[in-house]
């Protein structure tokens, strides 16, 4: 559609309008100064518990993995790779079998969740953790053992209080404590 010429609303102009506008601005500022509606999340002490389905960190359940490589092939950032092991096959004694398991490199992972979606046996799943930071790059490149460990949100580990936000028609966003269990779990 071509742009339609819009009719601009001209604000009221003049000395009285200016005085009124300034006083109105100060009045609004004073209203919020005297009765602030502060909904700041005090982050290390409080945290937002993520809803199910949030694309957080990814954890592997090795028992379910059928080594189909779909996750590594679909990864758009080439963050997920297959590591290969050659070991004796328990079903056919004397023969060797090639085992392949995915590992992830969080340096590149963009948390798109394609690998979780494509996994045919739900061996990969998202963990509701999202605020993990690293001091160096090496520890972000996980190996097979580290990939099976479920990462914990540091705020949860340090004993933060889970909160959630609800919309109040009069006051806007309001922070309320999460109902039910406090702490982890």
């Amino acid at each position: 559609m071509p742009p339609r010429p819009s009719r601009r609303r001209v604000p009221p102009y003049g000395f009285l309008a200016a005085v009124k506008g300034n006083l109105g601005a100060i009045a609004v500022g004073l209203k919020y100064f005297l009765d602030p509606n502060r909904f700041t999340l005090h982050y290390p002490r409080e945290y937002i518990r993520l809803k199910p389905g949030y694309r957080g960190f990814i954890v592997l359940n090795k028992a379910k993995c059928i080594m189909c490589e779909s996750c590594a092939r679909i990864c758009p950032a080439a963050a997920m790779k297959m590591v290969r092991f050659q070991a004796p096959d328990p079903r056919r004694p004397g023969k060797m079998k090639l085992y392949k398991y995915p590992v992830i490199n969080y340096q590149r992972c963009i948390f798109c969740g394609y690998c979780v979606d494509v996994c045919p046996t739900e061996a990969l799943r998202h963990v509701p953790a999202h605020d993990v930071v690293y001091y160096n790059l090496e520890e972000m490149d996980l190996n097979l053992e580290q990939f099976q460990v479920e990462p914990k949100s540091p705020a949860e580990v340090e004993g933060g209080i889970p909160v959630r936000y609800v919309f109040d028609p009069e006051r806007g966003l309001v922070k309320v404590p999460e109902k039910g269990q406090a702490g982890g779990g």
Partner: protein
Amino acid sequence: MAGVVDTIISWIFWPPLFQLVIAPGLVAALAIVIFILWFERKTAARVQMRVGPYNVSPRLGGALQLIADLIRYSFQEPIIPKTVDTAAFILAPLAMLVISVVPTAAIPVSPLPWTWPIPMEHSLLVALALTTLSPVFLVAAGWASNNKFSVIGSTREAFMVTAYELVFIISLLAVAAPVHSYNLVEIVEAQAGWRMFAILNPLAFLAAFIAILMSTSGFPFEIPESEHEVVAGPFTEYSGLLYGIDMGAAYIKRYVMSVLLTIAFLGGWKPLDPQPGAGLLAGYIAPLVVVLVKATIVMAVMSFFRAVYGRYRLDQAVDLAWRVILPMALAGYALGLIYGYLGVI
């Protein structure tokens, strides 16, 4: 023994020293400025539904934030680029700091003659003249930096100086007219009861208030250092302690001008009325505290405007100063002349 203590006290409270260095001079200025900066950040946060500085000292509500900033600035690397004029670059902020405090020498905080640092008849004029000095050093700081943003910021400051100085002087002369005196003590003594000039002459008070905001880059007029346009204005090249001094000097100037505004318009020490023969506490310290509290409230109101107003453009600010605020100040002066002619006060 008591004689020794008395001697020491008399040395500390020797007005020329005490007034310039301790209160309302440098030490009190720094303390109040640190409080006001914290208050400014907290107020802006409060109006914007935030918390503001908090985690540095949760029990005090983050009141130590400015101390932390000061420590960090003091122990950061002071970068002095090779392209600057080194002597001017270093001396300009220091001179600005010193010159900003100097007007307090002419501002009396008590009616008793032994508390005046320099007994003079025209103290209002002297204080006004001394407050006009510090922009020179701000412009010099920008010029010495030899950076395009600094030079642009300095030029903006120079524009602002031409815009606000006249307004400030005329609006303060509106106070001197009805009293028939340039002596600040007489001006305060004329404001007995609730007849303070802020109520009698609101036009001049408002003009002086806006002129203070303009002169110290208060928030609606933070034009020389507007960081979205010129990086940090005259302070672009300053880092570490020198930048802290720079910023502190601007706020100290605002503080000194607020003290002057308090004396001239808000009745100074007026709820108190020290009689001749009053002691150190009743005659000097108590009026001083009243003045400082009033000045702090004035600065707090100025800080509150940071949360309400957006920044003006340079042309808008200069236009406002010449077309609206200057006629307002002149009208206030006319009102003061009428008061003086009728002998209201």
